[in-house]
């Protein structure tokens, strides 16, 4: 983890992505949660990141065109 000096919010920002990806060590997770418990400023930014991830996924999910489905089925190799 990058050293963020003595600024606890900068340190918490560094931990945000790994925290939301569930890849922090137990000690780091406890540390991040202790800061989040007392810092609404960081808490808001973590909640925003969570919402953003869901929102991005929904925004870019395009269903496959139905004609493509048919074209793919037509690529199947006929049985001899």
């Amino acid at each position, binding site marked *: 983890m990058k050293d963020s000096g003595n600024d606890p919010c900068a340190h918490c920002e560094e931990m945000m992505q790994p925290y939301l990806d569930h890849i922090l060590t137990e000690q780091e997770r406890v540390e991040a949660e202790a800061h989040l418990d007392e810092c609404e400023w960081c808490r808001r930014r973590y909640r*925003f990141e969570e*919402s953003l991830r869901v929102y*991005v996924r929904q925004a870019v999910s395009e*269903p*496959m065109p139905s004609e493509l489905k048919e074209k*793919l089925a037509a*690529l199947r*190799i006929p*049985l001899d």
Partner: protein
Amino acid sequence: MAEDATRIATQARDRVRFEEEALALADQVYRVARHLSGSREDAEELVQETYARAFRSWRSYTPGTNLRAWLLRILTNLNIDRGRRSQRAPQMTPLEANDYYLYDKLSADGDGRPADEERVVERLSQDDIVSALSAVPHDFRDVIVLVDIGDFSYQDAAQILDIPIGTVMSRLHRGRRILKRELADTVLEDMT
């Protein structure tokens, strides 16, 4: 003779099963392909080429392993072979901001009170997001698309892209920051 007939029948059955399983994943493959390639048309061609190749080389798939990852491996290789050769413009070093940057930008024009996070997200339109994602350089975008949109594990993404898992993690981390920077720029442009 009878043994040959049994072998042929077993192979035919295995192949049909493979094709059906692969086709059942087509929606998910397309969703990822759509943002690995530049446009809907490219994505459709890419998915067709992928399936044509998969149906031809179905024997090289090991039953019981991750078929979706296997298909995506074919697709990313095809994508590198075809599309990217033509778009190999020199890439600028992408601008990357810190992780809180986008929230700070989007919530800054309020009336001073802290904005509700979900409302802040809704300031981004679907077009903003699609266009910001397409502006992320492909090395970073590929990882975001596989992990955050395609729900692949780091391990699967590493195998699909043939890069070390540590590289997947660092590109994902940086890629998300680049995406947020692009989003912030897009929204600020819309506002001016």
